[in-house]
């Protein structure tokens, strides 16, 4: 009789066994390492994106650099950073932040470009000063486009964290290596299910935020 695909008793024993590789701890680490890069990425992308929207000549070089960074294998970046930040979560978080910028900077630029010209003009004509116009007119109107980019960034970040397992900081990615080394499938299935569930939850949270923040963007269907 072959081993079953999922051994429930393994899950019960390892969900919260107090050790550093209990599934609960791995899940928590995974959330931190996926979440921090997206938030940090957004905080960096907003000023950079605004600068690119304002000074058009900046945009192409910036996107070019971000795309080159994006094309670097994550493992290569981890190896480079190992000498600086060691075997820590930071070594995973920094490259993932850079990757998220490749999605988020264009999202901010596209968001600013989605502000209709007649709306911007009428804001100027009504006597908005530039800063106030940005904060209370242009940024709010850019929100739907930025959030669409944030969904992509969040989901890809959640998926990419697993690679960190190769340097011992991969959250749920550990389960894939563990399962593969022992030819034991239960951890792999648990890892996949949790990563997918995490991605779905993150996506739904952003969609909910979008509905809440931008009721005006809902078109009549």
């Amino acid at each position, binding site marked *: 009789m072959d081993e079953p695909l999922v051994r429930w008793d393994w899950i019960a024993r390892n969900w919260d066994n107090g050790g550093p590789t209990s599934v609960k701890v791995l899940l928590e680490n995974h959330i931190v390492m996926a979440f921090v890069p997206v938030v940090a990425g957004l905080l960096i992308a907003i000023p950079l994106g605004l600068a690119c929207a304002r000074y058009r000549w900046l945009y192409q070089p910036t996107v070019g650099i971000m795309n080159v960074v994006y094309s670097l294998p994550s493992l290569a970046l981890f190896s480079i950073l190992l000498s600086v930040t060691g075997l820590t979560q930071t070594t995973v978080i920094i490259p993932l932040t850079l990757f998220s910028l490749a999605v988020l900077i264009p999202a901010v630029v596209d968001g600013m470009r989605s502000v*209709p010209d*007649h*709306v911007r*003009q*009428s*804001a*100027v*004509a*009504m*006597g*908005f*000063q530039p800063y*106030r116009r940005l904060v209370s*007119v242009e940024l*709010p*109107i850019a*929100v739907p486009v930025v959030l669409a980019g944030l969904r992509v960034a969040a989901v890809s970040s959640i998926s990419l964290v697993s690679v960190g397992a190769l340097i011992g900081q991969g959250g749920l990615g550990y389960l894939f290596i563990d399962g593969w080394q022992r030819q034991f499938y239960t951890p792999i299935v648990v890892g996949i299910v949790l990563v997918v569930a995490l991605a779905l939850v993150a996506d739904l949270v952003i969609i909910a935020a979008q509905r809440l923040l*931008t*009721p*005006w*963007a809902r*078109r*009549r269907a």
Partner: protein
Amino acid sequence: MITFDGVTKRYADGTVAVDDLSLEVPTGAITVFVGPSGCGKTTSLRMINRMIDPSQGRVLLDGKDVTTVDPATLRRGIGYVIQQAGLFPHRRIVDNVATVPLLLGWDKKKARDRAMELLERVGLDPKMARRYPFQLSGGQQQRVGVARALAADPPVLLMDEPFSAVDPIVRASLQEELLRLQSELHKTIVFVTHDIDEAVKLGDTVAVLRVGGKLAQIAAPADLLSGPADDFVREFLGRDRGIRRLGFVPAKDLALDPAPEGVTPEGHGTFNPARDSLRAALDAALLSPDGLAVAVDDDGRVLGVVGQAALVGAARG
């Protein structure tokens, strides 16, 4: 009063958008800038609220050079309406209308009360106040645009082709609405359009501009139609300007003949000499099988008749 004093706008590439423009926009009246595209009408308008600054010459608002006033402060005192209304899609209608009062630092409650008052004034259902712009038709959005421009009660209103993007029926009703509002508010309005019919309908004064930003003629609509300054203005006014001019001549001075036996308003074109123009009287005559236009008073009583020959005579003046 707004004064253009030798105003020229030249861009870095050498294009001249406005060329030595001098004219006066009288207080409390509608002045229309009309002309083909490229005539500098919008550029001229935008030099009033400093969206564009002149290369040469001055624009004076009540005697004061606008370039000496802080742009944001200047603009908060000048209403502005543009083609697609320019409403903020992320703000409810009431908050759109309250924009300038809030920029001026009014408290929220006062600004909203004022916004509600204005929505009513431009003929919008108060129920619309809680909606977002995308939930309104183009004509309704344009009314909101007018309400928003009027919110802080500015003495000056700039309107840049505000009714060009809506269908002809809605446009006509928006034009009527503007004239009705103006009869109550007496704002100094500068209205830009490429449509000469709109210009003569709305303007107390019409300034015709030609390509290259030169003023071709500035006159009251009736004078413009009867005496175009040159071929360009004549052509721009179109072929039937003789008939259109009659729209500005009141019918009250027409000599009426006693109505012949059996002539009733039914089956005849009618006009009201107290209110209508010569154009309406002529139209009435053309609609009647016997060529007689029947004059009636406010209560529909027959005052007399006038024949086509007499009307043509009156039209010649």
